[in-house]
Structure formats: structure tokens, C-alpha cells
């Protein structure tokens, strides 16, 4: 299953970044596919991007809301929120584990041999503040002298934008190098910090700062596809804790908002078939059978 997930991540990454004519066109993709929402965090100013970034687009709607209302156009971003909500309603944070290019990038970085560290669980709440402040409130309320807002998250924080769009565009268009200043260097420093952190800890950006992950996390309890715990089979041995890349203690909180449904706990952790995949309440997959140990051994494995 882990191999399948890797292939899904690769294919999703290529589908969201499938415009490979950019070295010749020296421009980003401008075709009709850009009306479709990228499920993961994927900057739409990336020269290869074929879809729009929901977080970038939502900020633009918030930043331009007053202008559009003044012009008699009712652009509230419902299309973007609807697209995000449909994806979140079906898959929730499973998208982070299966279809986000920046999540995949962090997974690859974490494979670099180095000392590994845990991330304090309290930091998880920072991403909700980032979603609320940098994606919604500041673009909506912090206006310039012309009455226009800014996409604060893209402009000041997003390391995915620097990796996927800022650096490639500077390589592609040398004339832009003269225009970079403090803003770019500060974003570059944020990107480097997250890259180093991703080597040392598992998926730090997803866990601490990703506003799209925060949005999808809101669907933790109600998403259509989720993992289910069978309490009768669970021995509380803690094997699911040890394999989880997001630091979830699945047997203690099966609806944890951090769960990216990568299935590591189901496939590599639980030996008792206590974890299964669930589609809208109907169990799928490996809930029916204990995998390796007979019932007598279950009693012996509790820690």
C-alpha cells in the first residue's frame, strides 16, 4: 500500500504540474485546466502548474471582495470554498498524505539520514491561526491606500510558492533578479527553515503552518473516507503511534484532525486488524481479520 501511495503522490504531482513547455514559452500555463482546483498546496504561479491553488485563489477573492462588491459583482469565493469543501468532505486530510506535492516533498526530505526530532503537539494549532489571519482576515481587512487587500499568506509566508514559483521564475527570467529584495529573502529564509526542519522532523509544514491542511482538518469527523478503530480488537499496544508520520495516537483519538490516512498504522502498525478504512460508515479493507497473532497473544501484547 505504501508503494501505491508513493505512486499516487507522483502521479498527482505530475498532473498538477504537467506543463513542461515552460522552458520554451518562458511563461506559466494559461490554459483552461486552470479553472480546476489543485487538491494540495501547489502554487499556481509555478511555471508547470496546470491547476489553481485554492489558498492563493481564496486570498485573492478576499482581497478583492470590496472592489467586486463596489463594481456590482458578487464574487465571494464560493466556487473556491465549494471546491475545497467537496475535496475535504470526501477525503479530508487524506489529500495531504496522498495528493499534496509539498507534503510529498517533505516526505522525501525526511528520508535524508539525520537525527530525528518530535514536533510539540501544541504547535498544531498555529495553522488554524494562519488560516484565519493570513488567508481570510488580513486579505479582507488590511487594505492599502487604494482599498485593495493583499494575499498575505502567499506574499509573506508560503514556502511552497518560493520552491515552486519564486526560484523557477528567477531562473527562467533573469531580468527579475534585479527586482528581488527583503521580501524575497525573508521568504527564502522561511523556505530554508522548513526544508531543514523537514529533514529533522516529519512533515513540519503540514503539521504546524499549512492553512490548507487546517481547512481539511475541519472535516476530520465527517469526511467520507476515514480510518476506523475497532475497540474490541485494539489492545492499546501503541504500535500505531510509532509508525504515524503525523504523531497521531490513533487508538486514543481515531478522529484526530492530524490523521492524513496514509494507512501506515493499518498496514505497518496494527497487528490485530483493529484499524480499517471506512467509506461513509461502511468498513472497507482489513477490519475483518487479525493479521498475524492468534487471540491468545493479544492478551500478552499491551505495551
Amino acid at each position, binding site marked *: 500500500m505504501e508503494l501505491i501511495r508513493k505512486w499516487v503522490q507522483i502521479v498527482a504531482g505530475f498532473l498538477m504540474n504537467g506543463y513542461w513547455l515552460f522552458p520554451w514559452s518562458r511563461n*506559466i500555463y494559461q490554459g483552461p485546466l*486552470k479553472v480546476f482546483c489543485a487538491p494540495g498546496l501547489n502554487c*499556481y504561479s509555478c511555471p508547470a502548474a496546470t491547476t489553481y491553488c485554492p489558498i*492563493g*485563489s481564496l486570498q485573492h477573492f478576499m482581497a478583492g471582495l470590496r472592489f467586486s462588491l463596489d463594481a456590482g459583482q458578487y464574487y465571494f469565493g464560493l466556487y473556491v470554498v465549494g471546491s475545497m469543501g467537496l475535496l475535504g*468532505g470526501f477525503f479530508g486530510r487524506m489529500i495531504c498524505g496522498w495528493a499534496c506535492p509539498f507534503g510529498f516533498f517533505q516526505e522525501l526530505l525526511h528520508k535524508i539520514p539525520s537525527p530525528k526530532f518530535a514536533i510539540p503537539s501544541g504547535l498544531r494549532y498555529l495553522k488554524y491561526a494562519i488560516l484565519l489571519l493570513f488567508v481570510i482576515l488580513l486579505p479582507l481587512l488590511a487594505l492599502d491606500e487604494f482599498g485593495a487587500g493583499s494575499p498575505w499568506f502567499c506574499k509573506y509566508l508560503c514556502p511552497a510558492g518560493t520552491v515552486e514559483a519564486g526560484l523557477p521564475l528567477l531562473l527562467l527570467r533573469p531580468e527579475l533578479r534585479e527586482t*528581488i529584495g527583503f521580501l524575497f529573502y525573508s*521568504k527564502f529564509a522561511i523556505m530554508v527553515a522548513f526544508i531543514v526542519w523537514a529533514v529533522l522532523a516529519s512533515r513540519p509544514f503540514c503539521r504546524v503552518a499549512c492553512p490548507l491542511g487546517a481547512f481539511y482538518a475541519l472535516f476530520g469527523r*465527517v469526511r467520507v473516507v476515514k480510518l476506523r478503530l475497532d475497540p474490541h480488537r485494539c489492545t492499546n499496544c501503541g504500535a500505531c503511534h510509532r509508525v504515524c508520520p503525523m504523531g497521531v495516537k490513533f487508538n486514543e483519538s481515531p478522529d484526530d484532525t492530524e490523521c492524513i490516512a496514509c494507512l501506515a498504522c493499518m498496514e505497518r502498525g496494527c497487528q490485530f486488524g483493529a484499524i480499517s478504512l471506512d467509506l*461513509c460508515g461502511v468498513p472497507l479493507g482489513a477490519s475483518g481479520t487479525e493479521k498475524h497473532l492468534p487471540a491468545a497473544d493479544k492478551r500478552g501484547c499491551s505495551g
Partner: protein
Amino acid sequence: MQKQLQRGRKPPHPIRKASLFTVLFFLGLFLAGIALDEPARVLEQARQICLSCIGIG
């Protein structure tokens, strides 16, 4: 006999209605956005490079 059959039968898995309502709610938002012609606005934004958004310029 009837009781034995009932005991042996697995309990049914109730469909999570909250999941369906959530999906339907956001489907409604999605369709409302289309009715307001928001996809054209999204396309217009996504076709432009916003240099200041990525820290350049």
C-alpha cells in the same frame, strides 16, 4: 431459532449522514459559485503571474 439467527447476524453499518450533508452543502456552494460566474474570475487570476505574491518585485 429466530433469536439464534439474530444473534449470529452482524450489526448493520449505519451510513454517516453528516458526511453526506457536508458534501451536499459544499456542492451547493460550488454550484452557487458557478452561477455567479466565479470560475471565469478564478481563471483570470490563475493565468497571471502575481510576482509580489511570490516575493518578487
